[in-house]
């Protein structure tokens, strides 16, 4: 039995015909939807509430559907966004804000002062910077529907910085009825006044989020610059298509099924770079910062000498390569404030950027009185950036004679275990790694691990009253020069007491089809201004 040559040709012809017909059918469907931007986001959108969670994917969703009063631009200046004009009283105690004309929520109702006040108050209950602003606030008052005033208890020079904060939690403006939700209860209504509207009934968690252009949005006239300037939606519809498998995501963008893949794993960069229809790009000018965090409550890293021993060993170039693969995507950054931002400095940084000294480290280990106690180095194998750092650290700690055990798990388990304050014999931990996006650690107000408030500090719980005093001094500093000086003092102190160690500054490249233009260079991925040909 067998097919004749003619039969095989007939079969092949029929198969090709079917395939072409199938292709034509789906092509027509796409045309009917207008310009659709298909985007693979960094993660799956799980929560719609950017105040309830600090997850970056929810922050990015927030930027799609909400607008902000102020925003940070590419020169680190705070620019008005929903606000048209504002005034500060001579005693610096009262700020009066007036909204722009024509601002409307997606349900057609106008944005009012009451909406802004309720949104800021809810944000102030969750965000670290917002909490500081709330602490300084006497009252928020609606003067009329378009004008509202903030009265402070004492002068606070960071009001606009707080309101223009670019990363989690961003003070997005929501309708008052939504913003009145308890800050610890998740909102479910995505109505905002931003440049895109979420089509909630087409949301398939774990797979797809659909947004359409908000045709009522009134953009500012200025050109876009980070989160500031005109937010002009240049596509009719945006589809976030979550593809968890990176090989499939690469195949999808190669085949043109998606237009943009937000974050590329290092091993696939050369593969995509070969495709002339794809641009592999770095759109994040600040990148992210890896960190090595100690448990300050338990031996052996409750000992400053031992933390200093580790600091003497950390070679940021090793971490940069381990995380980013390609040296051009990772670099050393020996500052506790994101390199490339105004407060980044070199005070005390010799401890991290100077010659790496194994002998000095071993001497410090000896001085610390370390007696071979077990060190639990937690790692999450489903988080490549965390795991790459942990492997470098494991090797490094062994070199100076520390008894290190790698505790590998998934990220969900790691973040649960890190809340344990017990010793390692009772399920506790000694060291773990994570990373922060650049904007999250640009100042003492934002840098969560750079605290010395003991139990109130971020996981690891360092106690350092002097560091806290300096932080308070930074909040009280009235001029940029004074602020910078205090930030330098804080950094010097941090290189002595070592609350954590910055491991490297790295970027995660993005890839988009060359028929896209207008991609905004920014530490947050914004989808306005992007045009598809």
């Amino acid at each position, binding site marked *: 039995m067998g097919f004749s040559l003619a039969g095989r040709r007939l079969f092949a012809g029929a198969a090709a015909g079917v395939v072409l017909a199938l292709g034509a*059918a789906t092509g027509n469907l796409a045309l009917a939807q207008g310009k659709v931007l298909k985007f693979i986001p960094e993660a*799956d959108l799980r929560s719609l509430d950017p105040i309830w*969670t*600090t*997850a970056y994917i929810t922050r990015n969703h927030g930027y799609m559907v909400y607008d902000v009063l102020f925003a940070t631009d590419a020169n680190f200046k705070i620019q008005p966004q929903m606000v048209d004009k504002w005034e500060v009283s001579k005693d610096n105690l009262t700020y009066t804000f007036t909204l722009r004309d024509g601002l409307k929520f997606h349900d057609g109702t106008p944005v009012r002062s009451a909406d802004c006040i309720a949104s800021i108050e809810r944000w102030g209950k969750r965000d670290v910077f917002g909490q500081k602003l709330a602490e300084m606030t006497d009252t928020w008052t609606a003067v009329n529907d378009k004008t509202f005033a903030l009265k402070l208890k004492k002068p606070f020079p960071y009001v606009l910085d707080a309101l223009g904060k670019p990363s989690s939690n961003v003070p997005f403006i929501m309708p008052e009825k939504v913003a009145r939700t308890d800050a610890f209860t998740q909102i479910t209504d995505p109505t905002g006044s931003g440049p895109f509207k979420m089509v909630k009934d087409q949301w398939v968690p774990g797979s797809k989020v659909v947004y359409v252009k908000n045709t009522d949005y009134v953009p500012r006239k200025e050109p876009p610059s980070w989160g500031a300037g005109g937010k002009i939606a240049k596509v009719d519809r945006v589809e976030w298509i979550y593809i968890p498998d990176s090989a*499939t995501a690469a195949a999808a963008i190669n085949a043109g*099924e998606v237009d943009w893949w937000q974050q590329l794993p290092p091993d696939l960069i050369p593969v995509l770079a070969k495709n002339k229809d794809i641009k592999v790009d770095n759109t994040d000018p600040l990148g992210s910062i890896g960190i090595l965090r100690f448990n300050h409550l338990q031996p052996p890293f409750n000992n400053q000498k031992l933390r200093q021993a580790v600091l003497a060993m950390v070679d940021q170039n090793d971490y940069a390569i381990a995380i980013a693969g390609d040296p051009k995507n990772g670099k050393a950054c020996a500052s506790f404030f994101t390199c490339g931002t105004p407060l980044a400095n070199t005070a005390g940084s010799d401890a991290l950027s100077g010659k790496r000294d194994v002998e000095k480290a071993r001497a410090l280990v000896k001085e610390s009185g370390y007696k071979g106690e077990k060190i639990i180095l937690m790692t999450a194998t489903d988080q490549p950036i965390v795991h790459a750092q942990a492997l470098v650290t494991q090797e490094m700690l062994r070199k100076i004679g520390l008894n290190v055990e790698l505790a590998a798990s998934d*990220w969900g*388990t790691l973040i649960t275990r890190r809340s344990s304050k017990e010793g390692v014999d009772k399920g506790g931990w000694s060291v773990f790694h994570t990373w922060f996006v650049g904007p999250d650690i640009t100042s003492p107000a934002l840098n969560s691990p750079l605290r010395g408030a003991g139990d109130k500090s971020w996981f690891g719980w360092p106690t350092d009253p002097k560091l806290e005093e300096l932080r308070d001094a930074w909040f009280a500093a009235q001029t940029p020069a004074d602020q910078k000086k205090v930030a330098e003092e804080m950094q010097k102190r941090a290189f002595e007491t070592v609350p954590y160690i910055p491991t490297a500054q790295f970027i995660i490249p993005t890839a988009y089809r060359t028929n896209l233009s207008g991609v905004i260079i920014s530490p947050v991925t914004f989808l306005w201004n992007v045009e598809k040909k």
Partner: protein
Amino acid sequence: MLRYTLKRLLATIPVMGVVALFVFSLLYISPGDPAAVIAGDIATEADIARIRAQLGLDQPYFTRFGTWLLALAHGDLGTSIFTNLPVSRLIGQRIEPTAALTLCTLIVAVGLAVPLGVLAAARAGGWIDRVVMGISVLGFSVPVFVIAYGLILLFSIQLDWLPVQGYTSISEGFVPFIRHMILPSIALGLVYMALIARITRASMLDVLAQDYVRTANAKGLAPRAVLTRHALKNAAVPIVTIIGIGVALLIGGVVVTETVFAIPGIGRLTVDAILRRDYPIIQGVTLLFSALYVIVNLLVDLSYSLFDPRIRY
């Protein structure tokens, strides 16, 4: 038979009760805290504690189990901790892609495996037999994701015939639906084809050695009639059993396939829920799967009487 069916259906209730208790207890003692996942990396310990309390995760075991069981008795599978959407809605969104993938895979697997198994048995020891068994070994040995990537490379990247990923509902048209189903069904179907083909061959060889088959051949019946009407029907019981087991195994197999082809099905819903400790989803899906296993087993048992008149319930 009706009485037997009802008895079996009633027996599913205690089975699911045990499953519910087991799953709930397992999740309770397993490490991981959804509140920590929700809060994000920058959140403080106090934030996480507030979220835990708000979600009721700080309640004792019996309180939580009782609350969940009570809601379940009212037909409420609960609400996803993360998305705040009802679990029944999330499962409803995902069931069509998984059902479609399972059905298409079964069509591919059974449609190829049974004829190939019969053919291999009829030509036992010959080259057709060796080729079929070779393909079976290959189907068993090569992981689904390797086959899947190979198919994507050939048919989506090189030939540009079929889409790499995604799912289109049949309600949006049969053509886009089937375009998205072809590669995943083949990738997943090959494994089950291998399994069913081997069992079909073995079962057929057993039957073909029986006296009545020799008699049928001696009577001068056409070989095709002997194979299909006499032998295959009598060899059907183990084949149907293995297809039933295959359906159960498919539920596990779809996880990899759905991940590789980015199909928003139940498998991915489950894996995502486990990774982020979304307990209500894990509990809901596990209950659904256990019910499916019981029903598939029941259907397999009932189908025996169609093929073998000696089996009566």
